[in-house]
C-alpha cells in the first residue's frame, strides 16, 4: 500500500497456502468463537430444548449482570490491572439504589447510585495512579472494606423493590417471537459503546498503550495516569449499570449477592482472549467468554447433569475452550 515494490524487503508469501483462511484462523477470536459454536452444537444434540428462542433468551438474561461487569473488568485488565472490587461495588450499588430509590424516587436514586459507584471506582483509580499501588492490592482492600461496609449499611436485611423504573431492565419485550429484556439490550449497548471507545477513539489507543508498554506510553507523551484513572472511573459507571440490571433481574437488593463476580468476570475476560498482562484483547472476546460460561451452565442443566458434575465438566470445558483457541492460533501462526 505504501512502499514501492523495488524496496519491499519483506516478501509476500507465495499464495500457495490459501492465506485468506490462515488469516481468519489467526484472528484472535476465531478459537473462542469456534468453541462457543461447538458447545451450542453439542448441547443441541444432547437436549432438544436447548436450541429454542426461549432458552436462548434465558441464557442471555442470565448473562446480563456478569456480562456487564466483565466489560469493566476487560478495561481494567487491558491496562495491566485487575479489579477485585467491581462485584462488591455493584452489590453496594443495588442496596443504595433500592433504599434511595424507595425514599427519594427512582431518578434521584439512580443518580445517587451512580455517584456512589463512580466515587468508589475513582478511589481505586486514585490509589492506583497517585500512590502507584498494585491494582490487585488496591481493589482487594476495596473489596474487603466495601463488602463489610455494605453489610453494615444493609444490616442483615434485603431490600425488595417494586418501582418500575428500578426494575425497568428486567422488563421483557418481543422482537418477533423472541422475548428478551431491556437488561439484555443494556448489556449489548455497554459492549457496543465500550467497544467503540476502545477501537475508534484516542482514549482506547491510550488504554492499550499504557497496558502494552507503560514506559513507552509515558515516553510517547500519553497521559498514563489519566488513562488509567479514567478506566477505573468508567468501571464505576459500568458497576452502576450492572446494579440497575441486577435489580431488574432480581428485584431484591441482597448484600450477600454476587460474591463470585470477580472470578466470573475475570474468567470471561481471559476466556475471551484478553491478556492478563495488559495491552492485548478486547470486549468482543469478553462477550464470547461470558456466553461460553452461560451456555455451559444452561446446557449442562438441560442435559440433566447435577451440580457437582457440572462443576467438573465446566472446569474441564473452560480449559478445553481456551486450549482449542491456542491450538488453532499456534498452528497457523508459528
Amino acid at each position, binding site marked *: 500500500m505504501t512502499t514501492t515494490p523495488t524496496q519491499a524487503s519483506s516478501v509476500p508469501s507465495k499464495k500457495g497456502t490459501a492465506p485468506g483462511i490462515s488469516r481468519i484462523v489467526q484472528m484472535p477470536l476465531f478459537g473462542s468463537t469456534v468453541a462457543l459454536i461447538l458447545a451450542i452444537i453439542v448441547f443441541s444434540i444432547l437436549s432438544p430444548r436447548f436450541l429454542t428462542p426461549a432458552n436462548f433468551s434465558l441464557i442471555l438474561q*442470565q448473562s446480563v449482570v456478569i456480562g456487564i461487569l466483565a466489560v469493566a473488568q476487560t478495561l481494567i485488565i487491558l491496562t495491566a490491572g485487575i479489579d477485585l472490587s467491581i462485584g462488591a461495588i455493584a452489590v453496594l450499588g443495588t442496596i443504595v439504589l433500592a433504599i434511595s430509590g424507595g425514599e427519594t424516587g427512582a431518578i434521584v436514586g439512580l443518580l445517587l447510585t451512580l455517584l456512589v459507584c463512580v466515587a468508589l471506582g475513582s478511589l481505586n483509580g486514585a490509589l492506583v495512579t497517585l500512590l502507584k499501588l498494585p491494582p490487585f492490592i488496591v481493589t482487594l482492600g476495596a473489596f474487603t472494606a466495601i463488602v463489610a461496609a455494605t453489610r453494615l449499611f444493609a444490616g442483615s436485611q434485603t431490600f425488595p423493590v417494586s418501582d418500575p423504573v428500578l426494575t425497568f431492565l428486567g422488563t421483557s419485550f418481543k422482537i418477533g417471537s423472541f422475548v428478551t429484556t431491556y437488561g439484555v439490550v443494556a448489556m449489548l449497548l455497554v459492549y457496543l459503546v465500550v467497544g467503540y471507545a476502545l477501537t475508534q477513539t484516542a482514549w482506547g489507543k491510550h488504554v492499550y498503550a499504557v497496558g502494552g508498554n507503560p514506559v513507552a506510553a509515558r515516553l510517547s507523551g500519553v497521559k498514563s495516569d489519566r488513562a488509567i484513572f479514567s478506566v477505573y472511573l468508567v468501571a464505576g459507571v459500568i458497576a452502576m449499570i450492572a446494579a440497575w440490571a441486577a435489580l431488574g433481574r432480581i428485584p*431484591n437488593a441482597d448484600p*450477600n*449477592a454476587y460474591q463470585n463476580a470477580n472470578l466470573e468476570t475475570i474468567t470471561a475476560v481471559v476466556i475471551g482472549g484478553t491478556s492478563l498482562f495488559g495491552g492485548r484483547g478486547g470486549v468482543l472476546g469478553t462477550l464470547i467468554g461470558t456466553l461460553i460460561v452461560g451456555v455451559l451452565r444452561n446446557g449442562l442443566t438441560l442435559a440433566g447433569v447435577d451440580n457437582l458434575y457440572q462443576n467438573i465438566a465446566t472446569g474441564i470445558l473452560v480449559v478445553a475452550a481456551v486450549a482449542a483457541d491456542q491450538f488453532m492460533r499456534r498452528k497457523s501462526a508459528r
Partner: protein
Amino acid sequence: LLLGTTACSSGDSSGDEGSGGSGEDIKIGLITKTDSNPFFVKMRESAQEAAEENGAELIALSGAFDGDNEGQVAAIENLVSQGVQGIMITPNSSSGILAAIKQARDQGVLVVALDTATDPEDAVDATFATDNFAAGVAQGSWVKASLGDTEPKVVMLDGTPGGTVDTFRHDGFLEGMGLKEDAPEVLGMENTNGDQTKAQTAMENLLQRAPEANALYTINEPAAAGGFAAIKAAGKEDQIVIGSIDGSCTGVENVKNGVIGATVMQFPTKMASQGVEAIVAYAKDGTKPKAGFNDTGSELITDKPVEGLPSKDTTWGAENCWG
C-alpha cells in the same frame, strides 16, 4: 426411618398416568444453597433416594455460595426450561428469588421450599423446614439452664452475616438466653461461615480478648468443633458451655464425647422426602401439598438434660442423625 415416610407412595407405579399434563417421566429439581454444606449434601442424597423410589428423575443444583441469588434464579430458569414438574428449593434469602419462583409456578411447576421459608410464606406451594428460631431458642434455653446461677458471659460463632437461617438461630439463641442483641453479657461475635478452621481461629482470638467467657453459641457443629479446639488449647474445657445446632452424626458423636454440650437436631431427610412426595403426587394427579409451613421438627440432643427442657440422649441421637 426413610422407608417409613416413603413407603406409602412407593406402592403406586410411577409416572404412567397423564399427570401434571404429560406422560413423560417425572423430573424434579432440587436447588440447595450450596453444594458443600453436609446438611444440603444429606438433603440431596435423601431426595435422590426418594426420587428413585418414586421412579422420578432428580436434578440437583445449587448456588455457588450462601447468598447466590443469581445462581439460584438461573437454576430455577434452567430447570423450568428443562421441563421439570416440580422444584424443591432452599432459598438463599427469603425474598430474593420470588419473581423467578412466581414465573416457574405460572408455568405450572410446583415449587416447595425446604429448610428455609420464603417471605411471604405463600410465595411457594408449601414449605418443609425446621423452625430455626425455635431451634435457636432450644439451644439458648439449654445453655442458660446449664449455667444455672452463674452470670452468662457469652461469645458467639455466627454463620454468614445476613443469612435468613443464621439470623433466626442467632436471635432464637439470645431469646432462649433471655438476652438482648446488644446485651453487655455478649462479649464478642465472629463470623465463621460455618467453617471449622475459621471458627477455631476466631475462637482463639476471642479467648485472647475475653478469657472469662463461659458460654458459646455456635451456628453449626463444625463451628462448635473449631471453637472447642481453641477452648481446649486454652485449657478452658470446664469453664465454657457449648451449644450448637444441626444433628449430624459427627455432631452427635461430639456431644457424646463432651466436645459439645448440646445440639439441636434437624431432619433434612424428612424435608427432602416429603418434598419429593409432594411433587410426585402433584405430577400424577395435580394434588397440591398442604400450603404453608410444615415443621419437620427439631430435637435437643444432650447427655446432660436440664429440668423443664425436653431432650433426647446421644444414643437416640446416633440412631436418628444424618450425614
